């Protein structure tokens, strides 16, 4: 699923080689940026946080031993950075999904419907912090619950519970919305 790319060769020398570090950033930028963007629903803020994560990676590179280690480290740091950010900054007031207003009805329910996708992104972004990160790792990164548990240092039962509860809430919210039943 993930390209090995620069991966085989690792990172101890990368801090002295800007081009190789840039290649490493290109390899992982979509993952880190998209996690932040889906979580925050704010592209500018997501880019800022993604940049900070990569700068932290740059300092950490000499102690990372393999491409898998880099990938795991990036997921872990991005997830925790996002959770910390929303807890500390409280830029968006946290509200349970039940309290989020009903999204506007979509015109169609076909696949990749832009309106439905937008509604789903809004609903995912309104989930509590941990559930939101779990959903992003499950459906953006296509990780199975075991990998999510490992990536977040979270019991697998908690991951499964977040997934089940979030999916149920999303279904309920969408079914209440006229024209959307999944």
């Amino acid at each position, binding site marked *: 699923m993930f390209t090995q790319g620069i991966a085989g060769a690792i990172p101890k020398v990368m801090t002295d080689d800007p081009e190789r570090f840039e290649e490493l950033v290109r390899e992982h930028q979509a993952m880190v940026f998209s996690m932040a963007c889906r979580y925050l629903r704010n592209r500018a803020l997501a880019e800022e946080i*993604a940049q900070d994560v990569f700068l932290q990676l*740059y300092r950490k590179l000499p102690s990372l031993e393999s491409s898998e280690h880099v990938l795991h480290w990036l997921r872990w740091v991005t997830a925790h950075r996002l959770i910390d950010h929303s807890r500390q900054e409280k830029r968006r007031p946290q509200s349970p999904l039940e309290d989020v207003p009903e999204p506007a009805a979509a015109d169609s329910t076909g696949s990749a419907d832009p309106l439905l996708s937008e509604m789903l992104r809004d609903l995912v972004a309104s989930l509590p912090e941990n559930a939101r990160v779990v959903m992003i790792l499950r459906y953006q990164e*296509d990780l199975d619950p075991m990998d999510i548990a490992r990536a977040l240092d979270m019991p697998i039962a908690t991951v499964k519970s977040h997934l089940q509860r979030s999916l149920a809430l999303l279904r309920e919210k969408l079914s209440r919305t006229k024209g959307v039943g999944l």
Partner: protein
Amino acid sequence: MNLEDELRAALRREDPSLGFAKRVVARAQSRRAPRKTMPRFIWAVAIAAMLVIGLTATYEVRQMKAERAGRDAVLALRIAADKLNSAREKVVRREN
């Protein structure tokens, strides 16, 4: 399409704005440069300051020792002079 497929479509990855990687590298480099030069500069200043303080302290200690030795010598001369005077007075009294 079911909800999970819709979620995968809605949450699929997307790239940041153009030039993102270059901006990250530029920031990493700009943070790195002062880090390399600053410690050297700080070390040089610290060593120079320690040398100045050390030399000044050594000079001050030597000065203090010299002054104390001078004062001790003067005191010793005064004591010796006092004793000589009292001895001379005794001799003069006996002769009278």
